[in-house]
């Protein structure tokens, strides 16, 4: 069976959000022609070990609700974990009571966290790629030179260069997370201090490599040829990207917006997180990409939050005490989430200070701040909390806490005599799932679908189809 490589390439191009386009140049052209439209941006910030209710629900709000509620945030105080979002309260939407549905987020939901698909039992969920993830789906709609920028942090392990963990263009087509800031930096902004145009040299090199692979193709047929076609498509798409970057380099645009290269290279979890956020902010500001996904633990439980705690992430999730910090695990995890929130707020600040059209970049951006494992480490996915920041050009309803029907339950160890961690919520089985929230995001970026990755019986459930009307500005 022979597949025309051109057809395949076209499929890839469509798949990767039209990576062959040149948004920057198109923008210039569009401005001239008067067809310019403000770009939208979506950023996913993900962390492990769960996003518990006490870290995300304003104090004093009861989670025992029979009917869906929308509570304005003005009068409420944000909890410690997300306090850094205080300046953006009017652009904030907190959502509770969504279910994981088919996703099993126990110890991290793996690829299921962003796809809402069941991708196997046991550890399989970290490796099996069942279908398209929401960040990729959005990237298809909001193309950029880098269709999607996936930045990961392998906690406490500075050796991991790239890892497949969160995102995919489709079944069996995962997208790698770049885990080293200095390497991500190089591919985005070129080598440090270089006056020459690295990108053009790299493009020539890539074309040379394409030539070598094409030579191999002659003796192969069928699947083997497809393997090489896939390789060639990747080479060609990289080559196009380098061409675009080369043009931006010539125009001086890259040099102006590149962040400072982290020096020395970050090693700890904390420093690496900071560096990745810096890179993300600059890439967004310069228009290299419109979709960013940052995973602080690669959608699983691994390593340790070095720089903050030397107890393993897993043990912290089990409430083990960090003796150095003299804090129980759940309080350390609060510090971790707060650090993520601080970095997110800093990113928002940068976008806010970058003018765009009549406002700032922030006006056209949405940050999805979430855990890869619902509300806790060993989650049954009865409540998957989300914090949305920004309204994406007025498409998302903010300044509200949305509560879907839930039953309240006490959090914490049963041995403990007092209510230390407050209460948690269990969404009813009729509640919408994370798929519906993701579909809402697709509606907001202009790709309205009937459902996102719902299958079988789920598709029949009317509450799960369409967007969440509490969040979407119609």
């Amino acid at each position, binding site marked *: 069976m022979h597949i*025309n490589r051109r057809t395949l390439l076209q*499929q890839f191009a469509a*798949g990767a959000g039209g990576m062959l386009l040149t948004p920057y140049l198109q923008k210039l052209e569009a401005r001239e022609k008067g067809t310019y439209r403000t770009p939208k941006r979506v950023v996913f910030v993900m962390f492990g070990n769960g996003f518990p209710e006490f870290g995300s629900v304003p104090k004093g709000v009861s989670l025992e609700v029979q009917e869906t509620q929308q509570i304005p945030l003005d009068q409420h105080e944000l909890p410690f974990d997300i306090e850094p979002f205080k300046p953006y309260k009017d652009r904030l939407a907190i959502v509770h009571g969504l279910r994981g549905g*088919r996703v099993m987020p*126990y*110890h991290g939901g793996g690829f299921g966290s962003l796809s809402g698909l*069941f991708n196997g039992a*046991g*550890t*399989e969920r970290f*490796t099996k790629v069942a279908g398209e993830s929401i960040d990729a789906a959005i990237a298809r709609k909001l193309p950029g030179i880098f269709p999607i920028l996936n930045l990961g942090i392998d906690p*406490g392990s500075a050796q991991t*260069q*790239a890892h497949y963990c969160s995102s995919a263009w489709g079944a*069996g087509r995962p997208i*790698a997370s770049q885990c080293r800031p200095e*390497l991500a930096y*190089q*591919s985005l902004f070129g080598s440090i201090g270089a006056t*020459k*145009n690295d990108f053009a*040299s*790299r493009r*020539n*090199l*890539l*074309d*040379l*490599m394409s030539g*070598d692979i094409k*030579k*191999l193709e002659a*003796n*192969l*047929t*069928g*699947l*083997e040829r*497809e*393997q*090489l076609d*896939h*390789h060639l498509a*990747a080479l060609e*798409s*990289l080559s196009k990207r380098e061409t675009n970057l080369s043009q931006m380099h010539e125009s001086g645009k890259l040099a102006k917006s590149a962040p400072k290269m982290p020096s020395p290279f970050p090693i700890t979890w904390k420093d690496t997180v900071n560096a990745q956020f810096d890179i993300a902010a600059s890439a967004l500001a310069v228009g290299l990409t419109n979709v960013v996904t940052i995973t602080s633990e690669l959608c699983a439980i691994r*390593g340790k939050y070095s720089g903050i705690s*030397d107890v*393993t992430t*897993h*043990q912290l999730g*089990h409430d*083990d005490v960090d003796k150095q910090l003299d804090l129980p695990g759940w309080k350390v995890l609060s510090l971790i989430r707060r650090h993520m929130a601080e970095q997110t707020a800093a990113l928002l600040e940068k976008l806010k200070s970058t003018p765009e059209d009549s406002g700032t970049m922030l006006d056209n951006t949405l940050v999805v701040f979430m855990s890869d494992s619902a509300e806790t480490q*060993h989650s049954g996915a009865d409540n998957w909390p989300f914090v949305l920041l920004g309204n994406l050009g007025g498409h998302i309803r903010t300044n509200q806490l949305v509560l879907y029907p839930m039953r309240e339950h006490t959090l914490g160890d*049963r*041995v403990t*005599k*007092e209510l230390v961690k407050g209460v948690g919520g269990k969404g009813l089985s009729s509640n919408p799932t994370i798929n519906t929230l993701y579909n809402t995001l697709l509606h907001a970026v202009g790709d309205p679908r009937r459902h996102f990755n719902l*299958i*079988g019986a789920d598709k029949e459930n009317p509450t799960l189809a369409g967007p969440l009307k509490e969040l979407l500005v119609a």
Partner: protein
Amino acid sequence: MHRFPSNSMRCQYSRLLAKLILAFALVACCSQALVAEVSPTTAPNGNGKVAVESPQLRSFLDTHCVRCHNVDKKKGKVILEQWPDAELWQRVFAAVEKGEMPPEDAKQPPAVERAIAVRWMREVLKSKGVTLDESATVASNRGNSVDHNALFGAGVGKSVASASSTRARLWRLTPKAYENFLDEKIQQFQLDLPLCSQKPKEYGFGMPHLPQGQMKAPWSFTPQWDFSNYAQTLRVGESEIEVQMRNAKAMADAMLLQFQGKLRGGKSSRKTGERIAQLDALMKAGKQAAPGQVKSAVKETFGKVLGRDPDANELARYSTVIEKELDANGPEDAARQLLIAVLCTPRLVYRVETAGDGRGMLAPLDVARAIAFTLTDREPDAPLLQAAKDNKLATVEQVREQVVRILGDKTIEKPRLLQFFREYFGHYAAKEVFKDQQTLQRLLPSFGGKIVLNSDPSFSAEFFVNDTDQLIRWVMAEDKNVLRELLTSNKIFVLAYNPDFPSRQTDRRAKFVDVPADRPMDVKLNAYERHAPNLYEIADYDPKSFTLIGWTPHRTYEMPADHRMGILTHPSWLFAMSSNTDNHPIHRGKWIREKLLGQRIPDVPITVDAKLPDEPHNTLRTRMQVTREEYCWKCHKQMDPLGLPFEQFNHVGVFRTTEDVVDKEKTNDKKNLGKDGKPMGTKYTTAPLDTTGVLDGTDDPKLDGEVKDPFDLIRRLAASQRVEQVFVRHVFRFFMGRNETVEDGPVLVAAHRAYRDNGGSLRALLTSLLTSDSFLCRNKE
């Protein structure tokens, strides 16, 4: 050809058989040649142009589907009288391909007809812009699709016209092979870069400190249920290419630095590595370099780095790019670009096996590389290369000579052999299974004391994996009844040597130097050393020998024969086949059904949303009753009864005679309630243990029947010829890098005979496989 069991399972069993035969037929039909014979005009030609209704497919729907899926009956709300849309086609395709439709009780389409219909559906879907993962059909989890009797039954080889051979193909290099190449170059040019093979020097906070600037292969084969390195299923994408380019750049930088006699820090280097004279000349000449000079540089760089001359096409393409770079950025960048380009060679990504046009034996050098990579995971050694040069790899006898030499030479490392057993048994996944502290405290008798688990949440499972690995090494060295020994031996190696450990550990051990106990790695070791004797129940162990001082690499003990029997009772395997909080009878049963009995369990239906009931007061066996619902049981009956005998052990691998369950009464007793009215701790009681199971539908009369306990189960499996043959199938798959087809039947029969005739020798088995047509011949189509 098949024997039916005489009990009430007959009906279900015959359905299972029907499916197996069907599965076999499907695979058979996927071979282009066979289909062409059956139906040369009706099969789609793969050009993807079937946007309009195809009459063949229409008639398939009319014959087999429309009786229920019509406007009146509308079964499952599906109507197939009209030409379906893309979404419906996807569902039809999935159902027909998996054999779910037509339903079991309906008349089934002949296998060939179904296979062709499925192919048409693929074309329709493609024409509608639906991307299908074609590689899934050759994925390693489809290996058992071929009916066992079609490979080993009577008359094998007669029914199939074409001889066994493998398609011209590509292998992706393993990370190890990739890194071996880089290391060779680092040594050849004496570069100021750490070797990829260099071990981490120290541990800090439980984490190895890798040498600065150490390069890594751009891809890794993550552990998975089935074999991870299949030739056809791997893809290189953008991220791999980027890492590959980064590595090449790091190498090129180091080479230029070395040519200038400098080290990375700016100091001068005292090492003298190989030089590339023409590259020096090019850099000296600068922008004025003549085109001929660039060409000579390209030529010599190819020779020094890749060990061969560029062909005319390469010479022209490379020279053009280098000239461009020379012009734009000067001589040093041009030299760097050339080095990077050559180091980005496809040879570092793929190993290509072709046979020109038509079917033929691989060229001598390709045979040499195939043997070398298959067994040693590196480029051929000197004798093998010499044999290729002297054209002494042209006959089966000549190949056999080399294979026997490598297999027999203890000094040649053969990492792929152990890797096969790791991936086959899957015990090395034990490292991936978390157990929390409370669970460990409850289940391990001597847990507590000074153990610091913070440094290792997965409870030192890696040490138990090493012990199992060591048993495998020992059995391979003995090379007698290999499979039976692995399945039944109660021998255990304690604290086995692991060459992957950081050098500090092994060095100190080898020198019998005491290791201070304040290092996390050593704490883990201590934890292991305290538990291993208890878990293995080694009565005769000497506690003193468990100190690091008394360590020797080969410490064998006999585990009690009535408590342990082979790898399936090793803590490592039990651990790997367990969940965070329980045993995993489903995985254990699936493993036996697939890897020992050679049968295929269907994929988990995407609609399955099953969880065990939250009834901690019941035994796992009782809680698993939920799988007995009709919808679940049709698959679970193939797994659960094979996995449940292993309830003999708890989920950290301790032998037990009763099962601990939650004592609801005591837990909720007033005495146990805190001020908030909730229990302050969980109280446990014991429930009687049931270790029975059922072996059935195995197609081997000696195997079928009730099973008393895991030992009864293992004993019967280990004695079965069928199990041995399935093992041979797996060896074939791993070393050939693909699934077996009906054409491979004679090769498998011969390999099994070689294994048997030589007293269960793995070496004989491998020699037979590596001298077979399947291994040595390639065809283009």
